[in-house]
């Protein structure tokens, strides 16, 4: 286990270096000469050259990369062009808001996904199983940005049950659970695809486990079917389910929630990425991507470790 941890953590170094190198390359490829921005197109070649020297833009790319990396490590992520505020400050502000949405969507995905997966496995090859499978394909195929629009139209504009977007009300809140109300629609829409994927994995894992003999033995011992399924089968299927759930939540925070945030004006990382893309605010956008890479990599590590702890079989490998 210790060896695994060390290996896994050491591997973070090349991944983070590689990831930041990709982001740095994108910065370089982005259209527009920074000098143009600073001096205007009609500036003299001499003054341009002088400024290039001053900013180190004539150094070889790898030198520039490590200098940039140095800034990143010291917390200097540049300034957002649109908002004139340090990128890192903004990113941290928005991260928690996205995490909140991810919490809502993740809870929905886990409850519905694991539930549907178990039911489907227990009722294997019945019509219930088939309906769940078909519905899961539909959920996988649903464009969240479209479903979100339909939800707003039906539940907010037509029925007036839920707020259209944002994170809280300004006119008197309809109930004390104001933020929860704002989380319901985005949470469900963002959680739908992960729910479908978790359901499919949970079903497969359960079916695999339910083929094993020890369950029959337990049943023979007189354990109720519910106990057999929930206490024994599910526990054995758990590692795969947790693994996939972790991955899905990673995808959710770092991208999956993007469209949902845009549709529901949820002021998190996704909406910020959208605004920086539309506004061609490259420092902001690449800062967001870099930050997401860090989070994604660490989350993957945590998922791996969980999987290890829960699945003693792998340890002996």
């Amino acid at each position, binding site marked *: 286990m210790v060896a695994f941890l060390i290996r896994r953590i050491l591997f973070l170094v090349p991944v983070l270096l590689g990831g930041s190198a990709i982001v740095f390359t994108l910065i370089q490829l982005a259209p527009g000469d920074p000098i143009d921005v600073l001096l205007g197109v009609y500036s003299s070649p001499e003054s341009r050259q002088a400024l290039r020297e001053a900013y180190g833009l004539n150094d070889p790319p790898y030198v520039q990369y490590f200098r940039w990396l140095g800034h990143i490590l010291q917390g200097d992520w540049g300034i957002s062009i649109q908002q004139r505020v340090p990128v890192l400050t903004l990113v941290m502000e928005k991260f928690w808001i996205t995490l909140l949405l991810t919490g809502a969507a993740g809870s929905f995905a886990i409850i519905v996904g694991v539930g549907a997966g178990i039911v489907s496995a227990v009722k294997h090859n019945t019509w219930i199983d088939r309906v769940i499978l078909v519905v899961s394909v539909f959920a996988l*195929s649903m*464009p969240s940005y479209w479903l979100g629009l339909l939800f707003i139209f039906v539940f907010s504009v037509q029925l007036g049950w839920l707020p259209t977007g944002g994170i809280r009300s300004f006119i008197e809140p309809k109930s004390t659970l104001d933020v929860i109300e704002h989380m319901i629609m985005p949470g469900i829409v963002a959680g739908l695809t992960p729910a479908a994927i978790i359901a499919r994995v949970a079903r497969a894992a359960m079916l695999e486990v339910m083929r094993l003999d020890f369950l029959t033995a337990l049943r023979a011992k007189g354990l109720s079917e519910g106990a057999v399924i929930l206490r024994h089968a599910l526990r054995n299927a758990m590692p795969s389910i947790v693994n996939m759930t972790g991955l899905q939540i990673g995808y959710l925070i770092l991208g999956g929630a*993007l469209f949902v945030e845009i549709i529901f004006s949820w002021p998190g990382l996704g909406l910020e990425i959208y605004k920086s893309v539309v506004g061609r605010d490259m420092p902001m956008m690449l800062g967001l991507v870099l930050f997401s890479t860090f989070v994604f990599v660490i989350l993957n590590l945590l998922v791996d470790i969980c999987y290890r702890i829960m699945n003693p079989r792998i340890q002996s490998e």
Partner: protein
Amino acid sequence: MAAPSDIVSTSPGSTQGESNDPWRRLRVLKNHKSIVAGAIIVSLVVLAALLAPVLSPYDPIEGHPIDRLKGIGTPGYLLGADQQGRDMLSRLMWGARSSLAIAVVPLAVAGLIGLVLGSVAGYSGRIVETLIMRGMDIVFGLPPILLAIAVAATLGPGLVNLMISLTIVLIPPMTRVTYQVVVILKEQTFIEAARASGASSFQIIFNQILPNSVAPVIAYATSLAGAILVFGAGISFIGLGIQPPEADWGRMINDGRSMLDLKPHVSTLPGLAIFVLAAGFNFLGDGLRDLLDPRMRL
């Protein structure tokens, strides 16, 4: 996007064992309703896209301002008209082209690159393997959706740039899946036999490994096509992909967004189209996977 790990154990042996009698194969399809459903949906969309120049009643770009926002079933506009008075049916048919391109081209290109990289890595082992696979792990360690958006934003809007950005994020999973297939293949007896008969590594990769890994890789690619379509159209939806006046489903949803409650058809129809085509791909992908690997049947 689904992680590739959910179909890792694609076993290549299954295609080998089946009978070559074509009739039996067709009968097999009867047990795979999901393939049939998927294939029908996808072929219909392909047909609509191919025949758009012949069948579409109007030019997809030319607007008739006087007929703007006409509802479904208006004479002359079977599926209504959009905010510039352009025929929705024609735009949906033409839009099928870019949607199919978004879903298929990046997967095909990434699939080809992945096949080559994955086979080489899986077959040769050692340093080459480490270099390729660790390199892929690095790219795979980046959040794919954000990476694609960042690349698309850097390259600028347009169909080709959108396809490039999707291809880049698809190469690592395609390579990984090929690699996993090849590692299993390598131990099979017919490869041993080829090696014993004196074939070079190059010959083995191209004559034995590649042909035998194509099927599972295609199955995997198909299972991703739906997700790629939904995501790619989403990029157009936020304004980074295909630009007006070109017809594109993602873009069209956005066009109709401001009048969803009044003229729902403008935004609902293209959304439905994405949903149906993605479902088609997903059914097809599920079915192919079942066919190739009954153990993983869902």
